[in-house]
């Protein structure tokens, strides 16, 4: 997609607080196509770089409702419509007996959606990503904190942006091969 020679610039920080601050600054400076990488969830970081919307809860709610409906009506269909049988003199629609399965199916649908939805929205699995090309990026899963401003950002200018990042107190700023 990007025709730029580099994917972007990667700035490395020591502590989460520095990263959050840097993110805020970058966003304030008008950068929009940027992302941060941390070894653990850092509170407020996503908001700092302007990521606010999250549609996951809605998806899970819908899935739960659908699961509940499916759970109950599949039982109703089997017991009342498709193959009605007199079982121990109980009524065909013994709805109290249908509750447990309805509940379980609800949970199953919602839980599956939560996980799959999260992965889908995150675009995972994604075996290749340019940031992995950065030599020190492996530390992002250990103890280092990175801010990446992508080349596709309209305000991106390799020189200016590099200066800007170094100005944020990054230990090191490197190019990221596409």
């Amino acid at each position, binding site marked *: 997609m990007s025709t730029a020679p580099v994917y972007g610039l990667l700035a490395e920080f020591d502590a989460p607080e520095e990263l959050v601050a840097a993110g805020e600054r970058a966003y304030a400076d008008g950068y929009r196509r940027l992302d941060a990488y941390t070894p653990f969830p850092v509170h407020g970081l996503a908001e700092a770089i302007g990521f606010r919307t999250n549609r996951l809860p809605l998806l899970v709610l819908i899935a739960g409702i659908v699961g509940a409906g499916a759970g109950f009506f599949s039982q109703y269909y089997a017991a009342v419509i498709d193959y009605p049988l*007199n079982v*121990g003199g*109980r009524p065909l629609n013994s709805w109290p007996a249908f509750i447990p399965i309805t509940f379980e199916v609800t949970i199953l649908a919602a839980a599956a959606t939560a996980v799959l939805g999260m992965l889908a929205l995150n675009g995972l699995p994604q075996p290749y990503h340019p940031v992995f090309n950065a030599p020190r990026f492996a530390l992002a899963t250990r103890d280092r904190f990175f801010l990446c401003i992508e080349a596709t950002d309209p305000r991106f200018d390799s020189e200016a942006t590099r200066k800007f990042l170094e100005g944020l107190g990054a230990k090191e700023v490197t190019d990221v091969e596409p």
Partner: protein
Amino acid sequence: MSHDAMPGHDGIDWGEIRRRLAERQGPEYWRSLDEVADTPEFQELLHREFPEGATEWTDPVGRRQFLQLMGASLALAGLTACSSQPSDKIVPYVRAPEEVIPGKPLFFATAVTLGGCSVGVLVESHQGRPTKIEGNPLHPGSLGATDALTQASILGLYDPDRSQVVLRTGTPSTWNAFVSGLATQLDSGTQPQGGGLRILTETVVSPTLAAQLQAVLAKFPAARWHQFEPVSRDTVRAGARLAFGETVNTIHRVEAADVIVSLGSDFLTTGPGAVRYAREFASRRRAETPATALNRLYAIEATPTLTGGMADHRLVVRPDDLESFARGLAVRLGIEVGGHSWRPTPEQAKWVDALARDLAAHRGASLVVAGDEQSPAVHLLAHAMNRALENHGRTVVFTDPIEAVPVDQGESLGQLVADMQAGKVETLLILGGNPVYTAPADVPFAEALNKVAFRAHLALYEDETSALCHWHLPEAHTLEGWSDGRAYDGTVSIQQPLIAPLYGGRTAHEVASALLSDPRSGYDIVRDYWKSQRRSGDFETVWRKALHDGLIADSALPAKVPTWKGVIPAAPSVAPQGLDLVFRPDPAVWDGRFANNGWLQELPKPLTKLTWDNAALMSPAAAERLGVQSGDVVELTFAGRRLNAPAWILPGQADGTVTLHLGYGRTQAGRAGSGIGVNAYLLRTAAAPWGGSGLTLKTTSARSRLASTQGHQTMQGRNLVRMATAEEFRKHPDFARDPGDHGAGHQPSFYPAHKYEGYAWGMAIDLNACTGCNACVMACQSENNSPVVGKAEVLVGREMHWIRVDRYYKGGLEAPETVHQPVLCMQCENAPCEPVCPVGATVHSSEGLNDMVYNRCVGTRYCSNNCPYKVRHFNFLQYADDRTPSLALLRNPNVTVRSRGVMEKCTYCVQRINEARIQAKTHDRDIQDGEVITACQAACPSQAIVFGNINDPKSRVSQLKAHPLNYGLLTELNTRPRTTYLARLRNPNPALEQG
């Protein structure tokens, strides 16, 4: 099998093989010369081969036995196709086409003879294979019902262990060889007129056989005919001779008796006429209304019987006290007695007084019955009392004996043995029976037998006797051959074969005809005899009718009034020392002849609920004194002989009395029956065939595991069998009902009750009629292809009977009240088993049946856990024998044979319901009341079980369910059972009530 016991055998005899192959008829396949020659090697091979069953490894002892029952015999491979119709003409009982319609059973009337009495039966035949025995409604001794032994006898027909070939000193031979051998032997007889010839039969009630044997005796005037069977009625005959100077046959009119006194008799369940008597007795126990007058039964006995269990009053006395009691009662009734010195206990005195009053108050409508095992004196006293009470001709009727030639069989056997030992016997033909095993211990039959030059044995099995005979002749099963026999009242039934002999067996008639050297088919022999008996009229019609009806019209012996010659002797003054020993025929294997019958072995004995064993029954008090537990092996010493037997504590047993059942401890019965139980004959003497005093008992350290199907004997105060006296019933007609319940026993429910349109099947069981005789259990097993599981499985509680008879005791240990309650699937409308089944394998039919769908069942056993009646049974292993070809012939084709891992239970004989439905539909009508008869209902001698449509208010079952005595089991669980019970009533004598 018994080959190892056979005289030496060398390799394969080619001549024999050729002869044998020539002999075989029918599509009979053979695999190897060894097989045809039936060499021991081959037999061993079979035995080595067939336990290659999975289960054996898991539990060497039990599993092997279980497998033995499965009894796969390669030699039978060809026989599956061998079930051809007999070539002789026989007449279907039902109005069915002459030719067989596939899927449509035919019923043939025939007769089954046991213990010197025939009873008429109908046999259901599917494409030529008999599958089920029912009673013959036209037959006076059956009235449509049967007993357990008769029901089970059909299994004997297909028993793979039955002897399958003529054996000469253990090697296969042929009938022709035997016949010629016999002829030469008779010709070479050293004594004139066949003086060296002896024939030994069991009790003969077949007029034809008797005539044949008479002819033999005419041909060989010096020959002798002996009769012996271990459970004979010698004492009955002797008692009659004491009373009338002649042997007479005594018939009881139980129906006509208001007061019945049983002197150690089990007339309701064993002996000639028992089936009929049970029916008549029950007809006087049904309280149609609270006002109905019931009969009253007193039982005085030493060892509990089912009859005693039905009694309103039961007095426990020592065996030798019984005669004194009878004498005392006779004296009290004003009968002349030659000297009488009896010191009754206060209770006995009270009894004598009460009985005498009650009997006297019912002259002509009372009845005194002496047990078959009681001494001649007791029988004489019974006759005398009936005479004094003017019962003769009213409740007691006499005819000529039904035995063709009534003899004292003990004496007869004694003479034979004496002759054999004296070397007077050159030729001995044993037609049926197993005397080597059953002869009294002090009659050295076996060793005397060895002195006989030529000995042949005709029998169903190669048993203990065959092993000692030169010739073993395979006998034709009752359902394989022609014969006839007299019923308890003399009525003659023709025994027709249902199937050609599976193993080329022959009947006694055919052997006898060989003796007379005019070989004829059984059909000709029997038919010709009756033709000769018929002076006038068209014989053919009579014959056809006789075959069709299963009896010869008006052949019952005419009633006679024998002249009284009775002189009652003084009481024998023998002081009883030590304990008393009592012998009884086993309720399951009888005298041992049914030892290899898996159904009967696994049939819980009515009182002990024991299976696969007999035991020394003793009273709780005695057990307590000796510190004996059920299962402890005790050493019994009687008349100088010793026997170790496991003890079993039986409430209601007279203290100091030990009861042993005959028929166990067989050594060559077959794979199922050999080596189980203890052989009571080893203690039996000719002088004391039914036991006597002088028994000593020693405890041992050994124990043996006895498989009883009921571990708990009391109702734990639960209201399961509801009981009251007739008096209480008159006062509170609703005593049996649950409080606040109005008949149906329904509890309030959140759910609306299910509506049943059309038929709604239900059952009512009258506990006043149920004697606990087990006929229903056998009928169910036979009808529904129920498997046999073996002792090891019974021990862990896995028996498979769809109907069981629960036996509960009430009152003290010494003389408790015994009640029986048949429990089968209650077909609950709110069946607890159904909602818990995860796959819907048990659901309700539109007619209220609790259906079990075998092929859907995955076997979670949740239904059984949730069944409060525990009537569901699970195939924990592959119980159904799918290996033995002959048993495949036995199956009822209308009932699925269940496989491993599925649940099964009573279906209300749904196959019979559907049969009736088809009938009704083809005639475009509704199913009539009484058209559907379940197997248990059909077999029940006392008609305790009634089945029908409860939606039809006029049906018998509906009327019974409306009866005030009707109640449901555990209705407080709101299962709404379709099977309900009629509470049991006692009709006690107020004079005996207090205390």
